[in-house]
């Protein structure tokens, strides 16, 4: 099994036992007519497609299933953005540059948080950085759900000299009338939005807040690997 196949196995191992992961992977490789010893990225989509039925059987929880498939889709596009992807079936939409999670219900907050952590782990971030990213995503997703009702969280990797993760939280909610006041700590909302946004700012390396009363809020954060 080469490095690329190893990456896929590592993702499966997050959700399934070692023997199950290995047997799913080898049988999918057989069906996809690819060899795990010399797997290349262009072959990943067909392999992932063959993994689908097995995952559907072994991963009973819809959330885990969707997360696992999102991560698998990401492996395929790494360094090869031109590969045509199968349109994703799951709620979290995989784009060439990352994952989009619609926030519509409270459950989506947990989902966004889990995906943020999985992606940070996937990128090789330390446990502490993974936790910080997941916590920041959770705060942003909760703010969307609590104040705007619906919105979207997009998580993508940053390539280049400084590897990292970028999270963009966007909603068309009521906006924040005095962001400076909220970030200063003088304001405390009943639900703790002030604490959430201030905490998020402290956890990340870059923090941008763009808000327009009546139109919505966009928060963009970046966290680097080191």
């Amino acid at each position, binding site marked *: 099994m080469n490095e690329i196949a190893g990456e896929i196995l590592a993702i499966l191992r997050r959700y399934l036992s070692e023997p199950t992961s290995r047997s799913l992977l080898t049988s999918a490789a057989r069906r996809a007519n690819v060899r795990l010893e010399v797997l290349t990225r262009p072959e990943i989509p067909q392999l992932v497609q063959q993994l689908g039925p097995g995952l559907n059987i072994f991963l009973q929880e*819809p959330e885990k299933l969707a997360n696992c498939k999102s991560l698998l889709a990401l492996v395929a596009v790494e360094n090869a953005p031109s590969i045509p992807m199968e349109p994703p079936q799951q*709620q979290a939409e995989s784009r060439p540059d990352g994952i989009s999670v619609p926030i519509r219900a*409270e*459950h989506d*907050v*947990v989902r966004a*948080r*889990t995906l943020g*952590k999985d992606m940070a782990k996937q990128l090789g971030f330390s*446990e*502490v950085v*993974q*936790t*910080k990213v*997941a*916590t920041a995503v*959770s*705060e942003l997703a*909760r703010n969307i759900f609590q104040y705007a009702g619906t919105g979207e969280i997009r998580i993508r990797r940053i390539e280049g000299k400084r590897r990292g993760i970028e999270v963009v939280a966007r909603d068309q909610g009521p906006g924040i009338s005095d962001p400076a006041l909220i970030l200063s*700590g*003088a304001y*405390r909302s009943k*639900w*703790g939005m*002030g*604490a*959430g946004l*201030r*905490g*998020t700012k*402290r*956890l990340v390396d870059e923090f941008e807040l763009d808000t327009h009363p009546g139109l919505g809020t966009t928060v963009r954060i970046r966290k680097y690997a080191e």
Partner: protein
Amino acid sequence: MVMMMETQRIPIVRLSGKLIVSIQTALSDTVVDRLQQDVAAACEKGDARGLVVDLSGVDVLDSYITRSIRDLAVMARLMGVETVVCGLRPAVAMTLVEMGMELPGVRTALNLDRALALLDTLQPEGLPHDLAGEGDEWEGEA
């Protein structure tokens, strides 16, 4: 896709007069709110001498959930049930500190063993609590 899911419930275990809540799942706000109610109901029965909240299975604690856990502990103490929160993972603890969010007014212990031992050393009732009054300043800075 419509999914009908019953709200997940975190079990409260009774062990030699103590209540043990071990959280081993990703916490949603609803699950935490439900837990608060369940703990309050368990405390109300009056036979518990202490409560341990084990967070070793929790990999992310954001501000709302942290606050809910802290409220839960303070609430139990107000009902006369000493509470110890234990098992915070190092990465989670570091994240909370960085966010400026600690657990004021809440006793903590490294693990379940020590939490149970700590409860045994606490007077079950009668003595004034040395932590009383510390819970006012949640956000710390301001």
